[in-house]
C-alpha cells in the first residue's frame, strides 16, 4: 500500500512517536506535519496516523474536527483569516471582511474558482494592537485598509 504522505513526512512522524512520555501526544504535531504537506488532512491520512499512534481512525477524526486550524477538505493556496472578534471589530474588521468579499467575489468560507484564495472569518488571533488584522497562511498583516489589502493580495502569487 502506498503511503498517504511523503516519505519525508513519514520519517518525521516516526521521529515524533518516541519524543513524548506517551505516544498519544504525537498526534497534534503529526497532524500539523500532514497538513503542512497536503494543505488539509485527507481521510486516508487519518487512517494512516491512527495506525501509527495506535488509536482508532474515529478518534483521530474527532481530534481533527475539534481544532479550527485542521482542514478536512482542500482549501485555497492562500488562506485569508480575518479576525472578527470584538477588539478588531471595534476598529473596522467588518469593513475589511466586506471589502475582501467584494474584491474576491466570494463570501466568507468560500474559495475563489482558481483555487488561489480561501476567505475565513476567525476568532481572536491575539494581535488586537494591530487591529484590524488578518493572517494569510503563516504571516500576519495589521493596520489594514483597502489600499494595504490591495497591495498585500497583489504581492501573492
Amino acid at each position, binding site marked *: 500500500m502506498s503511503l498517504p504522505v511523503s516519505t519525508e513526512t513519514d520519517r518525521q512522524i516516526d521521529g515524533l512517536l518516541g*519524543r*513524548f*512520555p*506517551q505516544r*498519544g*501526544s*504525537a*498526534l*497534534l*504535531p503529526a*497532524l*500539523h506535519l500532514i497538513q503542512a504537506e497536503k494543505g488539509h488532512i485527507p481521510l486516508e491520512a487519518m487512517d494512516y496516523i491512527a495506525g501509527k*499512534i495506535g488509536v482508532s481512525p474515529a478518534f483521530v477524526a*474527532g*481530534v481533527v474536527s*475539534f*481544532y*479550527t*486550524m*485542521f482542514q478536512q477538505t482542500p482549501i485555497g493556496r492562500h488562506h485569508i483569516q480575518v479576525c*472578527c*472578534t*470584538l*477588539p478588531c*471589530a*471595534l*476598529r473596522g474588521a467588518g469593513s475589511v471582511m466586506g471589502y475582501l468579499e467584494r474584491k474576491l467575489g466570494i463570501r466568507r468560507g468560500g474559495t475563489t474558482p482558481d483555487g488561489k484564495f480561501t476567505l475565513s472569518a*476567525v*476568532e*481572536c*488571533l*491575539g*494581535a*488586537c*494592537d*494591530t*487591529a484590524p488584522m488578518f*493572517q494569510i497562511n*503563516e*504571516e*500576519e498583516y495589521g493596520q489594514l485598509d483597502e489600499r494595504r489589502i490591495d497591495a498585500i493580495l497583489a504581492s501573492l502569487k
Partner: protein
Amino acid sequence: MAYDKLLTRNLGKPNSATLDAYQASGGYQGLRRVFKEFTPEKFVEEVKASGLRGRGGAGFPAGVKWGFLPKGLEVPRYLCVNADESEPGTFKDRLLIEQDPHLVLEGIIASAWAIGCHTAFFYIRGEFHKGARIFQKAIEEAYAKGLLGRNILGSGFDLDLIVYRGAGAYICGEETALLESLEGKRGLPRIKPPFPAVVGLYGCPTIINNVETLANVTLIAERGAAWFAAIGRPKNTGPKLFCVSGHVARPGVYEAPLGIPMKELIEMAGGMMRPDRPLKAVVPGGSSMKILPAAKCDVLMDFDSLAAAGTSLGSAGMFVMDSGTCMVDALWNVCRFYAHESCGQCTPCREGTGWFVKILKRLERGDGVPDDVELLDNVASRVEGNTICPFGEAVAWPVQSYVKEFRDEFQEHVTRRGCPLAAAAAR
C-alpha cells in the same frame, strides 16, 4: 512616578530575541544566583514571599500553586507553560515570546528546578507560527550553551523543554483542556478535583504557569522577593503588562506596576481614538470579564481593586469602547466568539451560548420581543456555575454585566425595533 521597565526592558534592542543579546544585558545571572544561593524548597518560599500572582487570568499566587505538589511520590512532575494566549483583547505573552524569549526561558528553568521537573512543555497556540519558530530557536540556543539538557550550568539539574503547538481552540487555554490537548486529544476540560498539581499530564503531578508569570520568576531570581514585593500594591505585587486595544489612539502593550489607574493607561495609549467620541465603557481583563461603564472607570488596575469594582483583572486585556459603540452589537460579537469556542461538553454552555447569539441577533436586527432582555439574564443565570470549567462564567459575566450596565440601551432596541446607533449612522 518614574518607573523603570522590567518585563519589557529588552524590547526594541537589536536582536532582542537572541541569547547573545540577552546575556549581554545580564541575562541568566538570576538563574546562576538561584542555583548558588537557594535550594529548590527555598526558592519556592522565595516566590511565595514575592506575592507573585498568576498572570494568566485567575491571579492565583504562583508559589502557593507550586506548594500543592504532593511530596514523596516517585513519579515524574511536569511543568506546562501556558502560551495559548487567546482571551480576546490579550496580546502580551506574544510580545514576550517573539521579542524576549530568553526572559521567559530563564523563568521556566528556575521554576522547573524549584518544583523538581525534568520535562517541561511549552504549549503555544497554533496560530502563533512566528512565536513558535522564535521560541524553538531560543531553546536550541539554550541547549547549545548548556542552559537546557544535562547538568545545566554545572548545577547537576537536567531539563528538557518541548514546544507543543495547539491548533486553534480557545478552550485549550483552560489548564485541564490544555493537558488533554497535550496528550493528543480533543481539548475537553476535566472535572476538578483532582487538581493538576496532583493528577495532571499523563496522570502525574503537573504545574501550569502562564508565560508572563514565568517571566516574573526571572525577575525574582535576579533581585529577590523583597524587591519584587515593593513594586505595585500590597497583595498585588510586581510589574504587569497591560494590553490596551479598541478605541484608543495607540493600541499596544504597556508595562506598569500593578495598581496603575485605568485612566492613566488610556492616556499612555494616546487617549481616545476620536476626540469627538468620549469613553463609553471598558472591559478590563479580556472579554470574559465584566464591563465597566465610563462612570465606574476611575479604578486601579490590580486584582483586588477590580474585584472590589465588581469585575476582574483577568488577563489584563483591556479594551476601550467609545460613545459610537452599540452595546448590543458588541455583546453579540462577544457571544458569537463563545458560541464558536464552547467545547460542547456541558449542555448549559453549549446550548446557552447559542441562545445568547440568537437573542442578540434579533435584538440588533429589530426583531426583539419585550421579554428578550429578561431572557438574556435568565439564560445567563442558568449557565453560570453549571459547567465543568470556568467557560460558563466567561460567557455569563459579559452577558449579565452588559445588560445590567446598559439595560436602557437593550430595551431601546426592542421599543425602537432595532439599533438606534446603526439607524443614526445610516441617516
